[in-house]
């Protein structure tokens, strides 16, 4: 862990054209202060890798509405009509990936695996252009690993070595993305002294985290 940053300073790290993994599922477990700072700074041509694009006015939806997004790799855009409209208008390229495949591709990228062998997507449009690998006579799709320039995470508690814990359905993609971003920025709801998060409650070890957002209001 390098230290604690204000959201504006964290947003300044992110250049035009960067690829961002962003935690969250319909904006639950998404780093909203980080996203607000990004919207203010307005880097262009971002690639977003995330479960979904939320809805207008929430989470990743704010980046879409602000016109900062050139490409998304995601499993679902159904609740964000703006993403759909921009896709149809050719303003955003959308790669749709089955949700379980998406999280495994991110995990493979973060954990040094060459790809994912999954039965999901066989004999569907998802198979198009992909290698099919047979293992003991059964076919599997070879899905490639994903990494990104940045992973932007939302967490519940953090300590000052960067250890993170998560609450309930706000885990979702965050713990997996923590390994797959070259720079990892986490926005916790609380920061506690080192030693306060019990070792067994840590879901993301601090060694994976580069920056923490400073407490709200500081």
């Amino acid at each position: 862990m390098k230290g604690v940053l204000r959201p504006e300073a964290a947003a300044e790290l992110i250049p035009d054209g960067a690829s961002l993994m962003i935690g969250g599922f319909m904006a639950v477990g998404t780093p909203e202060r980080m996203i607000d700072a990004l919207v203010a700074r307005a880097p262009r041509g971002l690639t977003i890798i995330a479960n979904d694009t939320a809805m207008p006015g929430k989470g990743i939806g704010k980046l879409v509405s602000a016109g900062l997004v050139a490409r998304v790799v995601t499993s679902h855009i159904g609740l964000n009509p703006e993403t759909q409209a921009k896709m149809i208008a050719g303003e955003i390229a959308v790669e749709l990936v089955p949700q379980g495949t998406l999280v495994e591709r991110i995990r493979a990228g973060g954990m040094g695996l060459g790809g994912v062998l999954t039965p999901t997507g066989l004999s569907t449009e998802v198979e198009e252009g992909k290698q099919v690998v047979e293992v003991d006579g059964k076919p599997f799709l070879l899905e490639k690993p994903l990494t990104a320039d940045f992973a932007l995470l939302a967490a519940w508690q953090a300590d000052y070595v960067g250890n993170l814990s998560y609450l309930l359905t706000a885990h979702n993609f965050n713990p997996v993305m923590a390994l797959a971003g070259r720079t990892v920025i986490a926005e916790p709801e609380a920061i506690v002294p080192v030693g306060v998060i019990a070792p067994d409650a840590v879901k993301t070890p601090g060694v994976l985290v580069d920056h923490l957002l400073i407490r709200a209001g500081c």
Partner: protein
Amino acid sequence: MDAKELIARRVAREIRTGMLVNLGIGLPSLVANYVPATLGVFFQAENGVIGLGMRPPEGMEDPHLTDAGGGFVSAVPGAASIDSAMSFGLIRGGHLDMTVLGGLQVDEAGHLANWKVPGKMVPGMGGAMDLVTGAARVIVAMQHAARGQSKIVPRCSLPLTARRRVDLVVTDLAVIEPGEGGLVLRERAPGVTVDDIRAATEAALVVPDAVPEMELA
């Protein structure tokens, strides 16, 4: 009883003691209302909770506890939080005993299409492809027809969700079991005849001698 309630009540009868069940957004989510608490069923939402409970009273909602549609839920005693990798590990690995999903089309091969209408609606497959591929039992809960068009068709014209044959289709008119030999008509909705169902179904149906009326939860 409206069509949705009828379907939900019939699907609820498929659920057995101690099962782990995933209910899709919309119609399938209604099924939970008709499953007795005494069965000890655990509902999973793919966004990361096992042991999903009812929506909490106003003012007691928590933004960290939602279902896959983003709606507020509660957690039953014995609930567990999981991340998305574990959630889909359970689904793909066959640990989910049952999934109930909505459908756009089911065809004579038992294939489901439910994620895309090319040129019209491209929401994305979300978790549907993994659910249909991996769940131990796949139940499609849908209206028999939409805008006068049968949704049970000889061959899906819409993009498929998976190569896997679904296990059961429950509509407002019928219960249909896809199998090697085609779509077998298993049950009629109350007051509906086999001829009514044949007339409303574009696909060929295999009709056994006895087609009893649905029993509802």
